[in-house]
């Protein structure tokens, strides 16, 4: 449905040229919810705006539904208003001089709908986002969440080829954010709209996306399903950025099949999954919630001895700080199974949850 190939965008700044987007390529299938995830300043917005036609990349190609909308070599650059898109902006960009209804009706009107048809369509879209009762209100008199819904309704009021979202939830409070996240996902499913979503919030990305592209400094680090990126990342940056990660310096002794054997200060650890890493310096990824705590003296492969330094009670869960061979590791258990500070323990790192990665 969407194909981006080798997108590159360089900005000229006072400090010299700056590659905001650097050789970015990806494909998105029809109906897919695809997210660009990365820390702020990594080039997500620039990539998204290039797709929208609001930014002109220096190099690369973008095709929507097989039609090239941008091709630096061929000199193709379809303007934004002819790409048939819907977009939700981070600042919402709700037009303050129009009513809610007219805001939402606008895309229909500019596509030739009569004022009445447009109003009807807009009402349907507003109902979809739960704002039907505010249609006549002036757009300046809305709360942030309501403005966000207006922006959303405006983006989906027409059946478009592609929906683009630029951190649409980042200005909402936490509770509303979670609620909107659910609604957004439902809506997207219902409309089966192909969507590109930009966020720096990994939880949001995990909750919404079919696939996520992790970006750093203008480049895509890796692309995968939320599951893959969480459990089997290929890159230490992904591991760190998504979820909590304990990364232990290691030496990769050998690779076998999909896995690898690592030598660490904790002892030798077998991993059933290895990312992009060759024998030599490496790192061991294990998530705090995957580390098991056993009574001291429990033996076996992938174990190490440690002592609990402190415990934080989080309700359902408990966070332990454990000293293992001079390393401080975080271990998360159900709070019913928590250990008191000073307790001696054996830690077990289940091989199916251990990942060998390149050194950080």
């Amino acid at each position, binding site marked *: 449905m969407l194909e981006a190939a080798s997108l590159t965008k360089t900005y000229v700044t006072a400090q010299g040229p700056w590659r905001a987007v650097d050789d970015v390529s990806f494909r998105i299938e029809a109906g897919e919810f695809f997210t660009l995830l990365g820390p702020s300043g990594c080039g997500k917005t620039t990539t998204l705006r290039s797709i929208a036609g609001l930014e002109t990349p220096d190099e690369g190609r973008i095709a929507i539904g097989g039609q090239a909308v941008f091709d630096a070599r061929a000199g193709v650059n379809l303007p934004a208003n002819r790409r048939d898109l819907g977009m939700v902006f981070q*600042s919402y960009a709700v037009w303050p*001089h129009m009513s809610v209804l007219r805001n939402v009706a606008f895309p229909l009107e500019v596509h030739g709908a009569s004022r009445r048809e447009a109003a009807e369509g807009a009402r349907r879209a507003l109902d979809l986002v739960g704002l039907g009762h505010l249609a006549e209100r002036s757009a300046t008199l809305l709360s942030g969440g309501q403005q966000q819904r207006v*922006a959303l309704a405006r983006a989906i009021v027409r059946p478009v080829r592609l929906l683009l979202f630029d951190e649409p939830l980042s200005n909402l409070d936490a509770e509303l954010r979670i609620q909107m996240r659910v609604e957004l996902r439902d809506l997207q499913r219902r409309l089966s709209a192909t969507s590109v979503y930009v966020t720096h919030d990994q939880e949001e990305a995990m909750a919404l996306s079919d696939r996520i592209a992790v970006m750093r400094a203008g480049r895509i680090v890796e692309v995968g399903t939320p599951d893959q990126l969480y459990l089997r990342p290929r890159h230490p940056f992904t591991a760190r950025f998504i979820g909590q990660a304990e990364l232990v310096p290691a030496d990769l002794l050998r690779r076998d099949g999909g896995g690898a054997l690592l030598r660490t200060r904790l002892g030798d650890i077998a991993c059933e999954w290895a990312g992009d890493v060759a024998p030599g310096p490496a790192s061991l990824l294990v998530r705090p919630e995957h580390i098991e705590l056993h009574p001291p003296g429990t033996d076996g492969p992938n174990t190490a001895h440690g002592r609990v330094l402190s415990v934080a009670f989080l309700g359902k869960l408990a966070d332990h700080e454990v000293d293992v061979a001079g390393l401080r590791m975080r271990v998360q258990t159900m709070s019913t199974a928590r250990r008191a500070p000073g307790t001696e323990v054996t830690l077990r790192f289940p091989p199916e949850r251990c990942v060998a990665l390149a050194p950080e």
Partner: protein
Amino acid sequence: MMRRLALLPLGLLLAYLAVVPLILLGLASLKPEGFLDDEGWTFDNWRAVYLGPQLWPMLGNTLVFALGSTAAALLLGTLLAWLVERTDLPGRGLVRVMIILPLATPPLLLAIAWVLLLSPRTGFFNFALMGALGLDRAPFDIFSMGGMVFVETMVLLPSVYLMLAPAFRNMDPNLEHAAFVSGASVWTVVTRIVLPLLRPAILAAAVFMLIVCLVVFDVPGTIGMPVRIFVVSSLVYIWAAESPTGLPLYGRIAALAVLFVVVLLALALVYQLLSLQGQRFATISGKGYRPRPMPLGRWRWAAFAGVWTYFFLATIAPLAVLLVTSLLPFQTRITWEVLDRLTLDHHLAFLGNPRLLTAVRNTAIIALVSASLVALLSLLVSWAVVRSRAPGRRIIDLLAFLPLGIPGVMIGVGLITVYLTFTWIPIYGTIWILVVAYVTTFLAYGTRTTNGVLVQLHRDIEEAASVAGAGYWTVLRRIVLPLALPAVIAVWVWVFAHAARELSTALMLHGRHNTVISTLMWNFWSGGDGPRAAAVGVWLMLALFLLVGLWQLLVRRQERA
């Protein structure tokens, strides 16, 4: 509480600047000969003005002139501001400089340059067109209402541009982009999104220009009066400078000025009503925005050609004519043959003038101080007006706007009276009385511009700073000023140029110690030396060119950083 306290001195200062001339105006209109020391009171002046035969026949001309010039300047100025500030028009930096360039030229000279281009008898363009198209009559006659409107449009255009450009520049570009992505064409985006959003700024500019057109005299005096097209401001001129009684008819001018002030108040009120109904749109949000030009697509080069055709006709040609004229022994029809007669005499005479150094120093001080004061006061006034909830804030806004409706002559008379009375403020005859005059009159321009930008500021932005513990002045200095900076700088440049070129007030208040460049220019001009006056105009222009060029360099540096 702090806000109210800060409003008080501001209100007092404005009252001093605006109300004092207004009161003197009222008094003068009731004095037999318009001088404060006249004995007795009378309504004769009112009767002579409003029941006499002179005023009403001029009203039709005045309306056509004011409405025509305002509409044309607004249309073109808005278009240019949008093209330059919001689109990917090629060569925008140079365009910005070009638009502002005529600002430093005294309108008197500009009008003369246009006469040399478009006079049916000597106009260069007319002859060129007659030659090229084989016409036997000149296609244009500058000495007509059309000519007046045209030249006034050219005179006002830079001001319109400077008033609107900051508002355009500050608008959150995503508001346009959202429409663009929705499938709207460029035209739709402009007419349905951009213009309505900027309505407060555009309306403010319209009101300002209308009043200016009502009061200005340079263009009607140079182009209209020779062919008996009189407007209301011609009356002011005749009564002030050429009264048949030997003394100026200040009483009548004052009575007439009350009409201007009433029109101004009416327009200001309409403006306030309109901009209340339509709310004020906060189009600068705190969210990281980065204005990015709108692609014009295939219109890009067409717009480029259009803009430069305009510049060629409206800026380059008249300025070139001024330059050539300044190199001629006497003012004459511009033909290729005159190139043989070029001489540097006038420039050398100007540069060798014994009063030049004093005049340059005086002009520089006056322009710098007036520009800085107006910029600062405008920001304070606008902030108070737009942001505070204090009671008198509307009045403060009006006070800042009012002096625009008082003819320069009467401001001059008022200031002379005031500072001859309060001799403990010893500024009569010095450059400081000019500073007071310029601050008083130019504040109207400044506040219209900064108002337009401050209404765009989201309240959140300042409130965030207040919550963060910043006090009134800190918020102003650290938050409001930087965000309003493009507007404040635009005001500064505008006032600087106007203070440097302003002639009639400078002449009116001329005294022992305040010779400025424009009065030097007038010396040449009224001494029968048009070309020498043109030479001064050329140097003023050059100075402004450097200033504006420098400003644009800074802007570009800032944009990159």
